[in-house]
């Protein structure tokens, strides 16, 4: 069953085409990777899906319902959660308070504070943040703040989770731990994942299906093996060449 459909999405920022006629869909339970160089439009696509940006043209539907044009909080309550590439913890609150706050909102809001705390503690245990539950979020390491992003998103009880570079800036060991954790939570909560990742190996390993963006356009789509063999992708993204040089710095 198809959970998310993006249909011919275009988005410009003052003359710069960030997304051009991008279509793809995500089936329930799948893990889809989103690949592309810096400025290819990946994060913009996330922002369009999560409601932070409106598409100029095109439609996004979730579970058969059109969601583009809705505010981010409505989309969250519909069951889509996202993390931010540049982490945005509630800096003045503790780790637990961060996650408990998310548990009081989102798709299945906890009625009582105690219930929210209970859910938050469970999630903190799963993502491995229990030992820093009472530390202010601002004091966490980058790896922990990335985990906190995931924990907050999880606490909103999503069906679809958008992960934006949760492994960027982490050490190889931390990347390994993050991958294991992501797969575990996916299993436990029956999540569908849409993943942006710069760590190529991680993306190839996680995803069953990969969508490649280049200059705001979809240039390829397929299984990791197909993508690795795709000449257009190699030219544009992996292998250098004239068009890849043009892609940098957009």
């Amino acid at each position, binding site marked *: 069953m198809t959970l998310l459909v993006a249909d011919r999405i275009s988005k410009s920022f003052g003359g710069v085409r960030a997304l051009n006629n991008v279509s793809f869909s995500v089936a329930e339970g799948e893990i889809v990777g989103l690949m592309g160089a810096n400025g290819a439009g990946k994060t913009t696509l996330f922002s369009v899906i999560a409601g932070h940006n409106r598409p100029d043209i095109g439609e996004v539907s979730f579970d058969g319902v059109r969601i583009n044009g809705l505010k981010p909080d409505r989309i969250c309550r519909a069951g889509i959660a996202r993390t931010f590439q540049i982490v945005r913890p509630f*800096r003045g609150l503790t780790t637990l308070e961060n996650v408990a706050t998310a548990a009081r909102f989102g798709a299945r809001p906890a009625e009582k504070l105690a219930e929210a705390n209970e859910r938050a503690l469970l999630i903190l245990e799963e993502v491995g943040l229990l030992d820093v539950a*009472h530390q202010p979020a601002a004091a966490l390491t980058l790896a922990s703040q990335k985990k906190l992003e995931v924990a907050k998103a999880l606490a909103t009880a999503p069906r679809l989770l958008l992960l934006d570079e949760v492994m960027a800036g982490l050490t190889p060991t931390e990347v390994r731990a993050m991958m294991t954790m992501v797969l575990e939570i996916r299993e436990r909560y029956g999540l569908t994942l849409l993943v942006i990742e710069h760590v190529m190996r991680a993306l190839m390993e996680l995803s069953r299906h990969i969508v490649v963006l280049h200059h705001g356009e979809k240039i390829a789509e397929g299984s990791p093996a197909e993508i690795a063999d795709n000449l257009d992708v190699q030219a544009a993204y992996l292998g250098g060449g004239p068009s890849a040089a043009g892609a940098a710095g957009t």
Partner: protein
Amino acid sequence: MTAAPTTTAPGVTGTWRFPVATLAAGLFAIAVPQVVGSYYVSVALTLCMWIALTQSWTILSGMAGYISLGHVVFYGLGGYVSVVTWQLLPLWVAIPLAGLAAGLFAAIIGAPVLRVRGPYFVILTFGIAELVKYIVINVEATIAQAGRLMFGTPPVTILFYVMLGLAVGATLLAWSVRRSRLGAGLIAIREDEPAAETIGVPVVRYKTYAYILSAVIPGMVGAVMGLRLTYVEVLQLFNPIISFTIVTMAIIGGSDDARGPVLGAGFLLVLSELLWSSLPQLYMVALGTLLVCFVLFAPNGIVGLLARRGGGRR
């Protein structure tokens, strides 16, 4: 550290100790007019006024972090309602009506005003208060009312009781909002508004609620204070010093805890009793200096200082 902490927000003391203590203090204060002379009743009235105003302010500016430097606009509107309707409406109608007027005003201007953030929001609130002040002055001038004489206003004891009720009400309101889902959402908005929206906090609606909740009681406070005057000028009702005092009290006391406004109001009241009548300008200098010092050195106010001394809450 226990595995089941009872807080989601800084400063929540968990149990019902705080509201019980507030109610007990309120009941105790009912005896004030029997015990002391009318001068101290009016001092107690003033204290209750500042507590009610500052507690209300923290709902918007402490929790959601939208610092209002123009809260006098609600006070002034409420005061104007009670002055205009004096001897036309009974007190128990006029005062709630004043609260309603202030709340309605907040509801109407809330959506556009709360789109403005940070320092722009701060000066915008100030500008709105001044704008409304001059509009009301012009309205009064057009209907040929330079000032209004008030006859037969209620005795100070009655007004004290009303104000005591408002102070207790505002304190309990601030306390319960802070513990509620609304409070958690507002704190999230203060910490990071886009991130709050992303976890499903309906930010526009919540900010508007906070704005309205922080306006209603100041409207009623203004209504009571309007009846304290025998000769009413609009300039007095919309005096920006009131807004400034609210902010200073909240910051000195600490706006992240329902005890803060009480401490801040008490502290400044003592200072004002010492200085205001004899040297009002020196009092204002002291107020300004205190604000600067607390912003620089103790942004969490007296409550924050006490918590630090007591080993911290976290």
